[in-house]
């Protein structure tokens, strides 16, 4: 049985895997049809006919992860690093009968490379489910507070 505390621990662990660049373990947290979504608009509801910054299925997430490792990935020579600071995640939906859980987390995300460092303020919404008893990500929605600003490259995962 899943408890609310397990969901909160899951979200903390997900951030740690990203900070430690343990991307294979991170990908394994997603359901087979899981997605990672970073909207372009504040309060965006549509993913199809409105542009997004990221709207990745597992194929595209794996492409990013494989690319980060590539010998000819020059924008990752040297590699970027990232750092998440999370507020206590809040469980918004806890519905074992439907196997559906939603956790909302405010966070600060730092991405750095060479002499440059960017800070993003983020609200993350994890739609979670369980598969064979393990918690898996159905959808990780990442809302940047300044989603409509002009950005330089964002190469890792808030």
């Amino acid at each position, binding site marked *: 049985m899943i408890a609310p505390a397990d969901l909160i621990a899951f979200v903390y662990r997900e951030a740690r895997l990203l900070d430690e660049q343990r991307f294979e373990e991170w990908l394994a947290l997603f359901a087979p049809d899981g997605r990672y979504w*970073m909207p*372009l*608009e504040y309060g965006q509801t549509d993913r*199809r*006919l*409105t*542009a*997004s*910054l*990221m*709207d990745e299925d597992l*194929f*595209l997430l*794996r*492409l*990013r992860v*494989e*690319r980060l490792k*590539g010998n*000819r*990935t*020059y*924008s*990752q020579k040297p590699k970027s690093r990232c750092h998440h600071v999370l507020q206590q995640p809040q469980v918004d939906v806890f519905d074992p009968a439907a196997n559906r859980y939603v956790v909302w987390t405010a966070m600060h995300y730092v991405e750095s490379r060479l002499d440059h460092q960017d800070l993003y303020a983020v609200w993350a919404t994890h739609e979670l489910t369980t598969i064979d008893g393990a918690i898996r990500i159905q959808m990780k929605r990442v809302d940047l507070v300044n989603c*409509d*600003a*002009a*950005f*330089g*490259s*964002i*190469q890792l995962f808030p």
Partner: protein
Amino acid sequence: MTSRYRDNPQALSALVRDAEVHRDVYIDPEIFTLEMERLFANTWVYVGHDSQVPNTGDYFGTTIGAQPVLMVRHEDSTVHVLYNRCPHKGTRITTETCGNTGRFFRCPYHAWSFRTDGSPAALPLPSGYENTPFADSQAAQGMTPVRHVHNYRGFVFARLSVDGPDFATFFGESLSSIDNMVDRSPAGRLEVAGGVLRYMHNCNWKMLVENQTDTCHPMVAHMSSAGTAIELWKRAGSQNPKPMAVEIYAPFMSPYEFFENMGIRTWDNGHGHTGVHHSIHSNYSAVPGYFEQMVAAYGEPRAKAILDENRHNTIYFPNLMVKGPIQLLRLFKPLGPDRTLVESWTFRLVDAPDFLLERTLVYNRLINAPTSVVGHDDLEMYERAQEGLHADGNPWVNLHRLYQPGETALAVDNGTTERQMRNQFRAWARYMAAEI
């Protein structure tokens, strides 16, 4: 500040050789200032699309070079472009990037108000200007309009200078690429849709423009992204249907022959395009129902002719690129010698299936977003060049690929030539070194 170039047309001309350009065109602050004054003021620069301002009083704030301007729908339904400042104290007039101002602009500072053609409407406490020469001031004229505005099939361009080439002369045959993009709508109309991706680049704006017709970089610089996409797809057994991401990424890894055979066409005044015969957009899967709509609108021969044109990137000199086959436009906004804002806009083909817009949005996200792996590949190269050009050992950038002595502006050539880059710089030098 010493001035090496302002009063020295010979020095400016010497920056551009037949097939080499001096690094100062990318890194020198004085050159950037002169570009704003001479290039961006004297050419027809893209402002926006009239579907962004469909109703009377709709406005959109943007820039032409370094100049803040706004585009607005006037009460007679024409689109006007005004300098975006109050004639009183200089306050920016638009409160949002885009919105509706009704019949009047009202400055939020002292409530001076103006009609949407810029002419003065009213100001509070007018008695304070009686017995002053206010009526003779420029302020009394209202908001200063940009005099030369041309709306071509929805695409609004403006020229800041009083004198200069007219719109049709400046663009000539290059307008055929915009025509093809608009004709792809069964209704012959486009609408801006989906939202704009804005990507900040710490490099000179011309590097981006040049890269649009650089056909020898995709298989090298994008090996990391497009190459990995192909590899993952193979590893998954290449099952059909091919995911849209693979359909979009895979052509970037086409061999040199593909790009040689696609061809490049150049026009006068720095315009040109890749993809004369085919392009990376040629083999996207058909969209159910679309061809039938096109045949109904145009008849079969014309519908086929429109859809068989698969131009890759068309440069509208100085800083616009248009992709007709996928209804996408990129504007390279110069902010400084080493800073450029890239805006990537997408369009809906009116009366065509939604799926076309959906695919265009996926392309824009996968290729042009600040979160795009292809974008990361490119920006890394531009920023390295911006840094490397400060090396004193060699002040020249090389553009010799397939150079022929005495080459002219109008031509169709091998798709891997750097001829369009040379064409751009010939136009650049003409505007920059013109006797003022």
